[in-house]
């Protein structure tokens, strides 16, 4: 061929929409019902209630008495201790799980997942039954004559810490685990062939590599703990009052919006500062599981850290040697599983206490139950209040799950298909409802809903819960799309399928498991949700968690145990289903 053709091309190409447009519905929802109300709450905190002008009066009021400062201090202290203890208990368990073969780990992980998704209310109720003055433990101790006076296990710092750590260990484990399974175990072996003792190899190689996961877990636990109110309300005493409880009181009893806003602003600030510090040291991407971007604490800080690890390793080696001599290496190897099973027992066992009590024949919450009876389940199912609350919770959770799966799924698709430089920022924004304390979102939404007439409506609940559930659906669906082979979509296109048919005939069937899992996670999120429900579901339109909360404040009774068993059973079954479909090909 002797064609001397030009390479000019001037024909305009047809416009093809960027995949990022798929994230628009979620983006709009989050701007209107998350970013805007939270921002407005912060503005309220610096506004004069009467004139609307700029005023620091609310913040000034915080500093006038030492009550608020003290509560802030208590909140930080409890959140900090919770983070530390959750890491101490969670690390060995996560380490143990990470060493398991994939299939075994999947099954053992349920011992972490079930407590993670079990309602805080149910867990707290269980601890009240266990630790109370006339609770199971004191009963046993008095009955066997070990103590003559009931031990003060509840309504003090001990009770709060037990409840908080119990609630947060699963989050810590689930955050650390992906980092640990990503560590190449051959590196530890390599260190040993190079002359490191097992103890040194662990601290200098494995522990060092797992640190981003540890830090991420610490951050998430700390931030989540800042906003806790259920546990301190029931397991703590006066001296363990936390910030979130004050905010609720300000809104519900005193209707002091600007002061509630100021308190919320402090909490948000605390959360953001923790994130900022974390980002400086480790980089935020480790939280979202997107892998480190190579950012390392540089220079002297890094060397000091390594020296510290070296010291730790030497100290541990010193301890390990005599222990090994004394008990033999087999005892040493049995330690890790023993500790891990102990942590699992701590996570699972307390909740199970509600089961025998739900079937008691007694009027009272006594243990062991004097006889078997279904009367409390009958009470539950014959009470219109309870039944309506249950039905409402189901409907709201179903609608929330559908909305959050579609919106989160579209956003995940947008992020997986588009490779814009905005991807990171969009991902972070969609995860933000997980980072911002729920109480802040709830108060902000309440203020907004009050103005547009969505308080005490199911729609308001669904919107609020969808905001909270979107991070979970996005992460779940993004995970399956990450391992999805996009060449299958290309193949479908070359075979003649347009984008829509490719989506519904190829992509959706292949990520079905992830979609169902996302749906169920969103369902559980909504089904268990209390914070928003406290504000938004008013009067008769109450949800199940709200009804439990009200009853627990009023009077503990065996009906609560029956309700707890039902909630626990529903969540556990949904979770088992979600895990199964997620794993099946």
């Amino acid at each position: 061929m002797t064609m001397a053709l030009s390479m000019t091309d001037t024909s305009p190409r047809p416009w093809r929409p960027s995949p990022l447009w798929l994230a628009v519905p979620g983006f709009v929802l989050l701007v209107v019902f998350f970013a805007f109300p939270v921002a407005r709450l912060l503005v309220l905190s610096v506004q004069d209630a009467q004139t609307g002008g700029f005023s620091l009066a609310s913040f000034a009021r915080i500093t006038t008495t030492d009550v608020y400062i003290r509560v802030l201090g208590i909140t930080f202290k409890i959140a900090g201790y919770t983070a530390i203890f959750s890491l101490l208990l969670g690390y060995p368990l996560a380490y143990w799980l990470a060493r398991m073969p994939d299939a075994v780990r999947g099954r053992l992980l349920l011992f972490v997942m079930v407590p993670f998704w079990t309602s805080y209310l149910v867990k707290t109720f269980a601890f009240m039954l266990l630790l109370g003055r006339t609770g199971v433990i004191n009963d046993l101790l008095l009955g066997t004559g070990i103590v003559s006076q009931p031990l003060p296990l509840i309504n003090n710092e001990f009770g709060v810490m037990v409840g908080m750590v119990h609630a947060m260990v699963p989050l810590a484990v689930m955050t650390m685990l992906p980092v640990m399974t990503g560590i190449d175990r051959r590196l530890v072996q390599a260190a040993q062939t190079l002359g490191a003792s097992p103890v040194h190899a662990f601290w200098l190689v494995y522990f060092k590599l797992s640190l981003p996961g540890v830090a991420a877990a610490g951050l998430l636990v700390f931030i989540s703990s800042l906003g806790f109110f259920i546990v301190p309300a029931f397991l703590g005493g006066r001296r363990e009052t936390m910030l979130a409880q004050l905010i609720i009181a300000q809104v519900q009893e005193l209707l002091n919006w600007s002061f509630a806003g100021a308190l919320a602003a402090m909490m948000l600030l605390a959360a953001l500062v923790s994130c900022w510090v974390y980002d400086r040291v480790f980089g935020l991407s480790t939280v979202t599981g997107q892998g480190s971007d190579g950012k390392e604490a540089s220079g002297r800080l890094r060397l000091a850290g390594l020296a510290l690890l070296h010291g730790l390793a030497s100290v541990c080696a010193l301890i390990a040697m005599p222990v090994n001599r004394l008990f033999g290496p087999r005892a040493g190897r049995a330690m890790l599983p023993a500790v891990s099973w102990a942590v699992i027992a701590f996570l699972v066992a307390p909740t199970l206490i509600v089961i025998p009590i739900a079937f008691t024949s007694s009027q009272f919450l006594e243990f062991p139950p004097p006889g078997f009876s279904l009367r409390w389940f009958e009470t539950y199912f014959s009470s219109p209040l309870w039944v309506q609350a249950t039905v409402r919770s189901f409907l709201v959770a179903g609608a929330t799950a559908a909305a959050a799966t579609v919106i989160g799924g579209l956003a995940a698709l947008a992020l997986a298909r588009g490779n814009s430089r905005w991807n990171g920022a969009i991902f972070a924004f969609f995860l933000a409802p997980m980072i911002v304390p729920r109480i802040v979102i709830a108060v902000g939404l309440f203020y907004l809903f009050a103005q547009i007439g969505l308080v005490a409506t199911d729609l308001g609940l669904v919107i609020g819960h969808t905001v909270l559930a979107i991070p979970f659906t996005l992460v779940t669906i993004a995970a399956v799309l990450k391992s999805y082979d996009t060449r299958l979509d290309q193949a479908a296109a070359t075979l003649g399928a347009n984008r829509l048919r490719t989506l519904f005939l190829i992509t959706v069937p292949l990520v079905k498991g992830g979609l169902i899992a996302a749906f169920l996670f969103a369902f559980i999120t909504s089904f268990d949700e209390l914070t928003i429900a406290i504000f938004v579901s008013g009067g008769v339109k109450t949800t199940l968690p709200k009804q439990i909360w009200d009853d627990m404040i009023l009077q503990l009774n065996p009906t609560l145990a029956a309700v707890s068993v039902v909630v626990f059973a529903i969540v556990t079954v949904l979770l088992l289903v979600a895990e199964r479909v997620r794993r099946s090909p």
Partner: protein
Amino acid sequence: MTATEMIHSTPRSVGGAMPKLLIDGLSKRYGNVTALEPTQLAVEKGEFLTLLGPSGSGKTTLLQLICGLVERSSGRLFIDGVDQSDTPVHQRDIGLVFQHYALFPHLTVAENVAFPLKMRGCAPGEISRRVKDALEMVHLGHLGDRFPRVLSGGQQQRVALARCFVYQPSIILMDEPLGALDKKLRDHMQIEIKRLHRETGTTIIYVTHDQEEALAMSDRICLMNHARIEQIGAPHEIYTRPRTAFAADFIGISNIFRGEFVHDAGRPRLATPHGIFNLPEDVSATGKGGALVVRPEHLRIGAASPNRITGAVSEIVYAGSETRVIADLGGGTQAILRLWPGDPVPQIGETITAGWDANSAAFVP
């Protein structure tokens, strides 16, 4: 015909017949990186054309531009004379066989093969008949109800072929389709693909980085390097008359002797560090110099030829059907020669002299 006429009228090859595929200045840039320089290429109907080149040479980019999976930066593309530059992938009527097959794991073998027919709205009866024919064509008629994951690699490859041939696309592209198979299966599937090509008479554009595969299968080879076409021609043409040192080096084993022209008794010869050699008769010496390309099978130990090299044997490689001798020529250069049948095997360290017939060598600038 001028360039502008070419673009605005129906494209035509010199012979008057319309090429099946005409690529006119197609290029692809990612920011500052050029994945494909503006490229001209015409493929005739029924031709088996191979895009051959090292990774990063632009062959896969060219393939993806042809089927529309990546957007062009410039240029146009005609199929049967119709401008298809802006036709979306799913309407281009091009078949693509993927490197890792890209079979849909949630569909059975038969459903996979039926997929393109369903997309084209064929009647159910026609679909089942054509699926059956296509599966029988690749000898998989009995496996239609299986899922792809239970099939062997070779069987999956056949399904991918059936799924492509079943809707009779006007051009079939294959992206290293045999790359994941072991050697023996690969040889077998090469013959299968040749058979399908012959039986269907379709136009195939085949991407590979395996030069043996390219030589064995193609009507023409399009050799690519540095995001552009290096040489295009029939396999024997490229093998015996490489036009560049890259082409000589990439296809087959070559001994390349670089040097400058000297005029010796009125005849131009090439002065290299290893001797002064005669040029092939059809080469005219223009420019300062170039390189002679001598294939191992044209070098013979002890040959009485004016073109001779001398070196110490450093390695002897026995490869079943042939034995190769590697000789150290000094100055860091090695020569590879194929032992002729019946010639004695030299010892390692032995100094040998080997020569070749001037016309068996190729000259490249």
